[in-house]
């Protein structure tokens, strides 16, 4: 119980701004009610990582949604300025920790752009093979997370079982389950162990049949899933391009853009695959895109294993890397969109400046544009459409 003194003090402190806001006509609706400000996160059980959303609610409808980032900021770009070029690669693993291979690949492409190194063809094939496995290991849990946000717990268990199997392959190849440090400047760390190509092939063959049973049959056509996702988070092509979206959120509106085909890097021009697009532009479309991209990744992995040449896996590099002064740029299609790295070199053995363009961060502005007008429980499916990773948006 509060003492009488304190109660009076508290009431006067509270009522004054509240009275002023009630008197202002713009915050009252036709029933004389005002909108409520609410903070969702950063420690919210349903929230993706450490994200805080400042919501203005009119009843259950969201009027305004402002994401607040920075709860996982680790000064990745600044730390990279004090490290030698090869020692930055283990840091990039910590950016988007669901797509580590893509981060490494993007950074390494930027340094190779500075150095003009010749990468052996076998190394390029191994890089693409690992990247596509990583895409599977990222897209499948993304589907599971989307279902988890709608309240379905089973798909995430099936998704993590698949991810676990891919991680076992990664562990045998790279030595670590998540922080790989495998793709190096000029090649890859080591050749594949002799039994791994057969293991990957067996896994991929099994996944192809399991995929239909475990994910498509389980989710597609489910009435609850359709009623929660169809028409939710709908956006037009123009809006998506204006916001600078990349990856599945862009392709689900029908924009046919994929870095692997449009700005090809590594050996993607030699491989056959389709860029998946959808026209609906809502959460359900992004789910369909992820399902179809998984099947394309399986196709790419099979081609990589069939076409993989013999030879060295590491290019000829000096012991100490000192790139000439200038800029290096590398961009890859990560599961979440375009991951790009820009490095400025001053001729020393540490970078002068490293900048990461992370898709989780850039796709996040979809929230401000798309969420207003939706109901409060629709925010989580829209987060599943973006599928951000907090290591990515905070760096």
């Amino acid at each position, binding site marked *: 119980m509060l003492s009488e003194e304190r109660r009076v003090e508290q009431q006067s402190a509270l009522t004054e701004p509240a009275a002023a806001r009630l008197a202002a006509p713009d915050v009252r609706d036709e029933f004389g009610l005002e909108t409520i400000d609410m903070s969702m996160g950063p420690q919210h059980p349903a929230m993706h990582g450490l994200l805080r959303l400042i919501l203005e609610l009119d009843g259950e409808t969201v009027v305004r949604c402002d994401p607040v980032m920075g709860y996982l900021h680790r000064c990745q770009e600044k730390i990279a300025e004090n490290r030698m070029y090869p020692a930055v690669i*283990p*840091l990039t693993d910590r950016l988007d920790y669901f797509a580590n291979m893509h981060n490494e690949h993007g950074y390494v492409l930027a340094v190779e752009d500075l150095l003009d190194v010749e990468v052996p063809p076998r190394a390029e094939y191994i890089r693409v093979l690992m990247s596509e496995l990583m895409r599977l290991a990222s897209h499948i849990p993304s589907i599971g997370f989307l279902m988890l946000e709608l309240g379905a717990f089973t798909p995430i268990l099936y998704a993590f079982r698949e991810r676990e199997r891919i991680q076992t392959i990664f*562990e045998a190849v*790279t030595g*670590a389950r998540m922080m790989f440090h495998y793709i190096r400047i000029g090649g890859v760390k080591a050749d594949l162990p002799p039994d791994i190509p057969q293991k990957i092939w067996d896994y991929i063959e099994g996944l192809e049949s399991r995929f239909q049973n475990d994910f498509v*049959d389980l989710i597609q056509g489910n009435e*609850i899933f359709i009623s929660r996702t169809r028409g939710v988070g709908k956006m037009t092509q123009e809006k998506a391009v204006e916001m600078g979206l990349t990856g599945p959120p862009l392709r689900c509106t029908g924009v046919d853009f994929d870095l692997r085909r449009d700005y090809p890097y590594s050996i993607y021009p030699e491989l056959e695959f389709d860029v998946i697009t959808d026209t609906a532009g809502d959460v359900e479309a992004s789910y369909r895109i992820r399902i179809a991209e998984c099947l394309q990744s399986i196709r790419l992995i099979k081609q990589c294993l069939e076409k993989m040449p013999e030879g060295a896996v590491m290019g000829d590099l000096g012991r100490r890397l000192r790139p000439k002064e200038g800029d290096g740029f590398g961009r890859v299609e990560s599961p979440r969109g375009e991951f790009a790295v820009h490095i400025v070199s001053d001729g020393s053995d540490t970078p002068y400046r490293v900048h990461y363009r992370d898709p989780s961060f850039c796709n996040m502005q979809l929230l401000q544009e798309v969420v207003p007008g939706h109901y409060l429980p629709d925010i989580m499916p829209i987060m599943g459409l973006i599928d951000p990773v907090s290591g990515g948006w905070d760096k």
Partner: protein
Amino acid sequence: MPQVGQGILKGMGVTIRHLFQNKITRQYPEYKRDLPERSRGMLTVDMDRCIACLQCMRICPDHCISIEQEKRDADGSGKAKPYAVGFVIDDSRCMYCSLCVEVCPVNCIYHTEEFEAQAYNRLELARQFGERPVDPTIDPKPTVKKKPKAAKQAPKKEATA
């Protein structure tokens, strides 16, 4: 409407089929799976082979290796060579990037299969390998950004002139 609920029933069929499959979870502390050959666990040093070249200390991005070096005639050849009297690996800083293992010319630092590093105190995670303990809290290589080339050369000219 007969179609409503069909999608849910189809999904239920999937979960029921999984009910009769083998379990894939394992009871971790009782059952430990075999680690692959390349697995990167905690580091260890074979001090008999170490030539105190300090390359691991220099390459380590997290500065977790500190070595105290001394000139000593260890093999009785009558020639004083660098010898590591103190060698500490601070596991509370290590991120298992394996750069020190790759750079070692005599393969004396390597990963073990040990991965359960836990302690009540940070200092307990600093493992000493040499005969003399080294303070792991001292940063062996403070990060100082190099000055630009032009600024570096200017005072040199003055000194020679």
